[in-house]
């Protein structure tokens, strides 16, 4: 769906307190995680989150190449976030752009923080995140699935990385922005944490938030990540997990 109009035309919040897609402020979109979806990769996962469909493959640890990129003390984690040409409304030219390069960098850093990289000196771990269909929140959904794929590859991790987005829409703080809220909202706050400690490994914000609003948003995110981490764990034990009703 494409909304036509200017910011002011668009009502993102209904009078009954529900959102444009009918959810409550702290309701997640449906999430489904499946592991071992690919044959070649050492580990893989597919996540569906709202309309997002994202596939992740992990190769490694294997010798880092080219040699001068090797770190003698630890493995390097190279995530590559990419949007398929057909994943977005207007066809995307293949190949990396500035946005995807930045996202690849922050995802690599977030994953590195969760992996026992010191066990694999001179190695590299490749994580390919392919967005097959995009529907707001792809970086967080991709990162959340990547952590599952890494676990599925048997790579030792300190903890899961799990994320969620919150934002501001028509003055309200809401969880897990949908496409229209992402395009026409007032703030966007994607966050990823280590599941057990709740420590933040990825955070980006743009828009306009007071300190109060920031606290409200991060509280929502922290609660949501607990539920999503549950799905991550189930997907690994049962190869498949699904939460259709995202509310608590």
């Amino acid at each position: 769906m494409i909304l036509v109009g200017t910011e002011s035309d668009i009502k993102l919040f209904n009078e009954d307190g529900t959102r444009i897609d009918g959810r409550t402020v702290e309701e997640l979109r449906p999430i489904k995680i499946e592991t071992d979806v690919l044959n070649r990769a050492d580990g893989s996962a597919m996540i569906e989150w709202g309309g997002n469909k994202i596939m992740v493959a992990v190769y490694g640890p294997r010798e880092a190449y080219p040699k001068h990129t090797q770190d003698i003390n630890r493995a390097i984690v190279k995530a590559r976030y990419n949007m398929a040409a057909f994943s977005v409304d207007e066809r995307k030219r293949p190949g990396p752009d500035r946005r995807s390069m930045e996202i690849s960098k922050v995802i690599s850093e977030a994953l590195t923080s969760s992996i026992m990289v010191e066990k694999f000196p001179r190695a590299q771990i490749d994580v390919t995140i392919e967005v097959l269909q995009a529907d707001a929140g792809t970086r967080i959904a991709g990162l959340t699935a990547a952590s599952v794929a890494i676990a599925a590859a048997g790579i030792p991790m300190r903890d899961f990385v799990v994320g969620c987005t919150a934002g501001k829409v028509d003055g309200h703080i809401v969880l897990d922005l949908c496409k229209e809220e992402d395009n026409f909202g007032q703030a966007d706050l994607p966050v990823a944490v280590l599941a057990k400690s709740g420590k933040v490994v990825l955070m980006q914000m743009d828009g306009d938030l007071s300190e109060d609003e920031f606290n409200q948003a991060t509280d929502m995110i922290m609660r949501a990540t607990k539920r999503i981490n549950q799905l991550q764990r189930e997907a690994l034990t049962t190869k498949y997990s699904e939460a259709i009703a995202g509310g608590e």
Partner: protein
Amino acid sequence: MPRDELGVLSEIKRSTILRQIKSQKRNDGRDLNTFRPITVQTGFVTKAPGSAMVQIGKTRVLAGVKIEEGEPFPDTPNQGVLTTNVELLPMAFPTFESGPPNENAIELARVVDRGIRESKMIDLKGLVIEPAKKVWIVFIDIDVLDFDGNLIDACSLASVAALKTAIVPGSTIGQKDFQLPITCTPVSVTFVDIDGTLVPDPDLEEEQVSGARITVTTSEDGKLRAMQKGSVGSLSMDQIKGAISMSFNLGKELREKYLR
């Protein structure tokens, strides 16, 4: 560490494959002239005007079709435009690297494209909005997700399946949406030469022991539409004629099973 090769098969595996071929069996136990199990799931990318996820054995690709307004080529002012691109994602194989398409990806995309273009599967003349100024551009983009041989047929099948379900978004320019105008259903069948025997739909291990490769694309009217001999090695004219006649048979089978 060399990154651009697809690995080397053990001598034991190699001789097993050759021995089986001699006794009319394939690497994975199937009969000589059959494809591996195939699944075709159209509409996988619900937001794209057309899409199809295809698995042939353990090979998996996803084709997505986008249709957008644009300018025609100056030498074909009364035709829409078709472009085909394949991405060999690093996800699909340990030695695939990100970056611009290499010669393998380019050959693959061009062979797939030729089968569709030369069969005139899409009636490009039905995609003119304003002659010489505005036409519909059909983008076929294919993500290779999992690689176990025979990418040409997998990509070709996915593209044709995606196109057959594709909708031209006329409503975005104040007209009506309409089905992409399709005139026929081309199917490609690819063979490799293993020790003198041509077999269709090779898996990766078979590709690693094989010599020459040949792809034959046919349409339901009994016409050859495109061919491509590939890889190092040679084929006798008799082998090629055998491949052609087998392509008509297998093409018919695939068309009826997966491209209705």
